[in-house]
């Protein structure tokens, strides 16, 4: 009941948010300088040629009119045609989205694992040099942005100790038996672990670059809440029952300490997805972010709009999942 209401309320706000995002993007990319049509045509094209093409893409109409036409199309599943790639935007975006999803989720998993281990180890060894070391590592990982981590990793694992692939999503001359764009998932399902290995080798560095700052934030906050929780009476009472440190941390403290971290992960994960734009570019990873940069360079207005809408949808979906997980983990909300 509560769940249904939450979802409905969330859908309503999502619609409003998306509309706002659409309007802003639509207007902004039409006001900034740069003429997409002129870029498509050879230098000797006549003014008449340009006008013809402008009319074809609807750029001769006023911005509100253009928006209505575009919005009407979107509601019917038509996001228009990419100017630079001359294909329907929806197909292009959906073709690239799985690559970005796989990369982001992999980065999230890495961040949670790294941050979780850091927090648990730091709590277990609180007050010792180990904890101090973890604090320093967290501080460093947090203050270096993802793309710089990308560069550092390229130097480290791409150049000095070349163990991972630097570029692309998969080795180009491999024959791929896939029917979807979720290569990693499909390679596992089809038990083609050779391909899984190749995909992971490509994904490792960009995912780690995206993961490190988030891992540090998770590690820091989770350790902080764990340490606070460790002082609470119910934790102490559990100790008197005969339980050791590991049990106390994992079973008593962690489930309660994790709630604030969960909220934070939600917010930070959307930042991480934003980070894919540059990191994908850096590693020539064929995802949505990389496509977004091309779209901006080419002033491909329909494609930019489509990508932005998909990113916005993704962000809202992430927030919804976080809220639901939070409610599921917190009995006080579950029974409210």
């Amino acid at each position, binding site marked *: 009941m509560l769940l249904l209401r939450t979802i409905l309320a969330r859908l309503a706000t999502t619609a409003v948010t998306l509309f706002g995002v659409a309007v802003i993007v639509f207007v902004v990319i039409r006001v900034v300088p740069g003429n997409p049509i002129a870029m498509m045509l050879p230098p000797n094209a006549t003014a008449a040629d340009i006008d013809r093409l402008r009319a074809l893409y609807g750029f001769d109409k006023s911005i509100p009119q253009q928006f209505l036409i575009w919005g009407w199309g979107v509601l019917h599943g038509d996001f228009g045609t990419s100017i630079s790639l001359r294909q329907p935007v929806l197909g292009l975006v959906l073709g690239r989205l799985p690559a970005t999803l796989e990369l982001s989720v992999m980065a999230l998993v890495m961040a949670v694992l790294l941050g979780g281990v850091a927090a648990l180890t730091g709590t277990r060894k*609180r*007050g010792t040099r180990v904890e101090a070391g973890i604090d320093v590592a967290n501080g460093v990982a947090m203050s270096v942005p993802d793309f710089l981590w990308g560069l550092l990793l390229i130097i480290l694992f791409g150049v000095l100790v070349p163990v991972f692939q630097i570029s692309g999503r998969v080795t180009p001359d491999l024959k791929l038996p896939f029917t979807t764009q979720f290569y990693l998932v499909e390679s596992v399902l089809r038990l083609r672990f050779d391909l899984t290995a190749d995909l992971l080798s490509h994904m490792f560095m960009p995912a780690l670059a995206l993961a490190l700052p988030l891992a540090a934030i998770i590690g820091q906050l989770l350790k902080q809440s764990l340490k606070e929780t460790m002082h*609470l*009476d*119910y*934790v*102490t*009472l*559990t*100790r*008197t*029952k*005969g*339980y*050791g440190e590991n*049990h106390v941390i994992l079973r*008593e403290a962690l*489930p*309660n300490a994790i709630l604030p971290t969960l909220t934070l992960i939600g917010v930070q994960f959307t930042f991480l997805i934003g980070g894919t734009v540059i990191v994908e570019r850096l590693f020539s990873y064929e995802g949505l972010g990389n496509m977004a940069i091309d779209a901006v360079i080419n002033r491909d207005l329909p494609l930019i709009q489509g990508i932005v809408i998909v990113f916005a949808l993704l962000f809202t979906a992430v927030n919804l999942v976080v809220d639901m997980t939070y409610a599921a*983990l*917190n*009995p*006080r909300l579950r*029974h409210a």
Partner: protein
Amino acid sequence: MSGYLRIRNLSVALRDSGARLLRSVSLEVAAGEVRGLVGESGAGKSMIGKAVLGILPRSVEVVEGEIWLGDVDLLRLPPAERRKRVGANAALIPQDPLTALNPSRRIGGQVTDRLVDILGWKRAKAEARALELLAEVHIPDPARVMRSYPHELSGGMRQRILIASAFAAEPRLIIADEPTTALDVTVQKQILRLIAAMQARHGTTLLFVTHDLGVVSKVCQSLSVLYAGLMVEDTTVADFFRAPAHPYSAALLAATPKYTDPWASLMPVSEAVIDAVRAEVDAAETEWRDAR
């Protein structure tokens, strides 16, 4: 006399400064006896209980002494063994029932966990035992309560649950650390009576921490008075209320309205008494320093 809990010359000190919070405290609780532990706030009452149960804060350490539980000195056991021994033979009734239950775990698991995980009982047996105990502490509909989360229950109910949980493993020793202070006045009496009744029925050795001499007179047979980490009096309740041996105890008693004239409660312990007991603490401290 050989008590079930025997603390000998226990000193607990801050790790960084070395300042002692307990000064060579000795205390004995005979099997089946209820001993009160009184003293003003900060005297170190809770510290004694924590030292016994092995839950001292990380900032403090035991610097000397013995804590005998039955026939073993807990301080000589390796940590894991000590935890098991304490978990199986002792239990705590905490001060604040609102914070002493894990908010994200159901009541049932929090009452049975020690039985199953530490004592190795079968889950079904542990659950039957928990139901039985919840009924014994007058919890209505124990089966439903077992499935509840702490936030669904009142403070009084939660303290009953914690009492049931403390008695679940039939421990020889229970330490109750101001178990009624955090409760409504109306509930305090019921809980006090419940603890006394449970103790009598189960024959448990009980160390009852409080600063309420009225409570001591009702539930305890013997009494220890602590001041600034120093044990200043160790006597039976009957003797204490007849004629406290130590001037500080006498002043404490005088400051408790019921037993003398009601205006006395408005009088603080006199400065002369405080100076005298402070001098005693200083002497103990000097003696301890010199001995090292």
